[in-house]
């Protein structure tokens, strides 16, 4: 773990102002932000732990808990919300048997919600990893999950 963090820090020339990008890279590596990695980062960049923790808890995109293999994002922004995004979210919660923010028992999926993905015209939208599923309906939830 130490080497991975060192490598990422090196890539950014130990630039403190690149903290967000560095955290993104660490998360891409481990799927979440492991505590040991953040402690290492604090020493490497000479930034107090508290400030890294502040940053890591500020952005929704960062997770301090291990996440599933696939990240499901349901959009609950205004446009998706009025088109029934909430129903899709509930349907996903039922089918996966997890609450928002949770990870399935088999570690396959983590269900999260976001407040806009910038593709309102195709709402309600669900995103799994990097793939977008537009015009979602309850019927489409199961086949969508089956693909993974």
């Amino acid at each position: 773990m130490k080497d991975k963090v060192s490598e990422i820090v090196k890539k950014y020339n130990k630039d403190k102002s690149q903290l967000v990008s560095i955290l993104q890279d660490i998360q891409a590596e481990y799927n979440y932000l492991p505590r040991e990695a953040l402690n290492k980062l604090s020493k490497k960049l000479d930034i107090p732990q508290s400030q890294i923790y502040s940053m890591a808890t500020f952005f929704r995109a960062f997770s301090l808990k291990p996440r599933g293999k696939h990240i499901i994002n349901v959009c609950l922004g205004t446009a998706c919300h009025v088109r029934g995004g909430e129903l899709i979210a509930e349907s996903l919660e039922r089918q996966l048997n997890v609450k928002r923010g949770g990870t399935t028992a088999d570690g396959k999926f983590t269900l999260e919600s976001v407040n806009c993905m910038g593709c309102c015209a195709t709402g309600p939208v669900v995103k799994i990893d990097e793939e977008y599923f537009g015009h979602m309906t309850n019927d489409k939830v199961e086949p969508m999950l089956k693909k993974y």
Partner: protein
Amino acid sequence: MSETVTLTIDGKKYTAERGRTVLQVATDNGIRIPTLCHNEAIEPYGACRLCVVEVTRGSRTRIVTSCLYPVEEGLIVQTASDRVIRNRKMLLDLLLARCSENEVIKNLAAEYGVTQPSFRQEYWEKNDCIVCGLCVRACEQVVGVSAISLVNRGISKEPAPPFLEKATDCIGCGSCYYVCPTHAIKMEDKNGVRRIHNWKVEFKLKKCSKCGIYWAPEAQLEYIRRKADLPVGFFDICPNCR
């Protein structure tokens, strides 16, 4: 020689150094503007917003936070216009709903005639913290330790140690406790031990080798000793005995 500007505050003309803020100049001249998140030793932040005033520049009048607004030539400031009072009342109303049992907030609100939040009682809280970040800023800017920070965002934002556990970098100086405008930080010195409950830390206090009183946390003295490159044993006796 520093440049000066002339401005009007509540109808009276004042000369002030360029670079000073409206709040500083008003305070210097005995005009009271209420504020909670301001401290002269710490960079202004504009969190509590109670120091709002009305400023007129040319034909435009608007509400600004005086702690962050630098004085300028010909500026007209009103610190207690109807609009300012209305704004402050609303801010205090909101603060009182959050800190419904805090004496500082209650007294300040009462000064403006706000004795009960206008929000439904089910939304009232008994929090003491207004999330002004003064403790965090003192720890960072004055102490230079940054043992705590503001974590999370939105309604769950709060000053806290990393990982919401014991603040491992804390030296127990108590600066956060002294600057907190609403006494939200609970600190006690008892039987030679200092506890700061909010950050889940405790520190052994140093006993003066002459008079025997406990006078400061050992960790803090060690921090100062190292920083100032003082000899070991420099802090064995308290300032009173030195």
